[in-house]
């Protein structure tokens, strides 16, 4: 019993390894000054994976189309900037809110479904959103994408530099703040009911939890975070393309999360860098051969390493400490 619930109780207590994780992200800025554009895109995907973890890992909402929210956030931020509203932080918040409202509109269809129908429904929405953006050239410029995005300096002080220094700190700041928000939400009674719904919606209903409402809240919050991630991707690359909405991106983020560990706070935050770095190396090799690697990773994680990297690390730690306590 203790073993089962201790992760829940421990969740809002900071662990020593967490400081290390964030220090590494700070150190990256000084260690790899030439690769900050890649590092920034990794942070964006980490934030995106975190948003998916909130829906899939903690609330049990299986989303095969999370790029809908990422893409909507990106396009909203891009259109906002092109319309002349150039302040980045509030722009990202507005973009996130747009994504959140779209989630509230999709929610009734998505959340009432479960299992296989839910996979199908979310996938269908992803395709519909992509095809819509592809055809609605007047709004999205179709294949060409939105370019020429100009932003005000961050806080009115820091210019957006060519080597992405500002972009890196901007993304890291968002990732840290939203990580803390999600962590706090998950440790709250609201967050605990979400995890209850993930385990068994029927029983949660029996004890009087308004399951649909809670899950809608989680879905909207997750969409908000995904929308912010999309907005940051737009703001830091000064471009929005159709790829932000693609099914590929939905699958990518899912693989990152699965690889890192679903239902672990750091799952997406660990999975995204590993996945992106492996892809960076493999893409120079051959983009199609890369699919051997992704496919192989998926099969491997599902068949042999459920819980991903974090899961494996936890198993090792429990194994080590378990061995010790038995000796003493």
């Amino acid at each position, binding site marked *: 019993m203790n073993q089962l619930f201790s992760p829940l109780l421990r969740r809002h207590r900071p662990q020593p390894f967490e400081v290390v994780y964030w220090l590494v992200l700070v150190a990256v800025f000084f260690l790899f000054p030439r690769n900050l554009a890649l590092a920034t895109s990794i942070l964006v995907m980490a934030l995106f994976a975190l948003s998916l973890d909130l829906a*899939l890992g903690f609330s049990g909402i*299986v989303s*095969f189309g999370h790029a809908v929210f990422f893409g909507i956030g990106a396009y909203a931020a891009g259109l906002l900037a092109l319309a002349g509203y150039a302040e980045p932080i509030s722009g990202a918040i507005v973009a996130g809110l747009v994504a959140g409202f779209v989630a509230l509109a999709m929610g*009734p*269809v998505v959340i*009432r*479904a479960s*299992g*296989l*129908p839910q*996979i*199908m*429904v979310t*996938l*269908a*929405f992803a*395709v*519909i959103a992509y*095809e*819509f953006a592809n*055809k609605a050239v007047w709004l999205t410029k179709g294949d060409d994408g939105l370019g020429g995005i100009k932003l005000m300096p961050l806080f009115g002080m820091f210019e957006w530099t060519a080597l992405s220094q500002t972009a890196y700190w901007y993304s890291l700041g968002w990732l840290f703040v939203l990580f803390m928000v999600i962590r706090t939400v998950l440790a709250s009674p609201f967050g605990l009911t979400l995890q209850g719904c993930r385990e068994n919606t029927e029983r949660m209903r029996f004890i009087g939890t308004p399951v649909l409402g809670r899950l809608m809240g989680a879905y909207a919050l997750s969409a908000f975070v995904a929308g912010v991630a999309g907005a940051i991707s737009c703001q830091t690359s000064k471009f929005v393309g159709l790829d932000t909405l693609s*099914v590929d991106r939905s*699958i990518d983020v*899912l*693989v990152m999360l*699965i690889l890192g560990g679903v239902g672990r706070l750091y799952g997406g935050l660990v999975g995204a860098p590993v996945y992106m770095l492996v892809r960076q190396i493999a893409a120079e090799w051959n983009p*199609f*051969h*890369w*699919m*051997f690697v*992704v*496919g*192989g*990773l*998926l*099969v491997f*994680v*599902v*068949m042999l390493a*459920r819980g991903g990297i974090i899961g494996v690390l936890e198993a090792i730690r429990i194994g080590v400490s378990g061995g010790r306590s038995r000796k003493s």
Partner: protein
Amino acid sequence: MAEFTSGLTFIGIYGLSYGTILFLISVGLVLTMGLVRVVNMAHGVFAAVGGYAAVELVNMSGVPFALAVTIAVIAVAAASLVVERIFFRKLYGASELEQALLTIGLAFIGIAALNLTFGPDVVGAMLPNALARNVQFVGRSVQVYRLFVIVLGLVIMLLLWYVFDRTSFGARLRASVDNRGMAEAVGINVTHLFSLAFAIGSGLAALGGAIGAAILPLEPMYPMKYLILILMVVVMSGRGNMKLSAGVSIFLGLIDTAGRYFYPEIGSFLIFVVLLLYLIVRGNQLLYAPVAK
């Protein structure tokens, strides 16, 4: 008026042949979803491999078209038995998310393998002269190939209907779809039955891929590109309902063709409007439609 008739003929012939190919490719997945509820996102790989094998046999080795298609279908059906034994048996108890992820992984590996073997470009289908000709048909010149696909589709549908409605194999299969536990209790070997159904479904997908290579062009991304279409048929067909899946496939084929014909710019979006409406109306009952008795 003549133009209108010719337009209708175009939509009819092209939509029907497109829908037929869609049916051949998807019916195997409809069946397996109904039988064991394994969502196989890699189903398109069977169609792609069948298509590539047939086309390469014709193009490279000069094997006659009909023989090449037959070899491809048998080879894919046999290979699918191996795949089923290695991967799918382990999935029967797994969660739907795990099934989807693992099969997407398999689809990616399939795509990479197709690229490695056949290169990244679209492979053109070589039709035998008899099929490549055009004939006059209800006020329009139509390729014989299209008519051939429709007729072949009808034959296969009749054959499937006969096998599933009139033979003991079909009766046992339907019993297993309706109530697996009960079917096992009366001594039906469901596992064995499923392997057979899986092989038949994969073989049909290969047939669809091979015959339909001139309609759905062969490229390495084929399994992902047409995945949504395949899944649409599966979703709209309810649980393992093959008769409905034939109707749905042809309906989708006609809608898509009509959309593209009347509105070339945005017509391909029409099919997704249909999907959206369907999702809103059916939403939570997807795939739980009662099985036709």
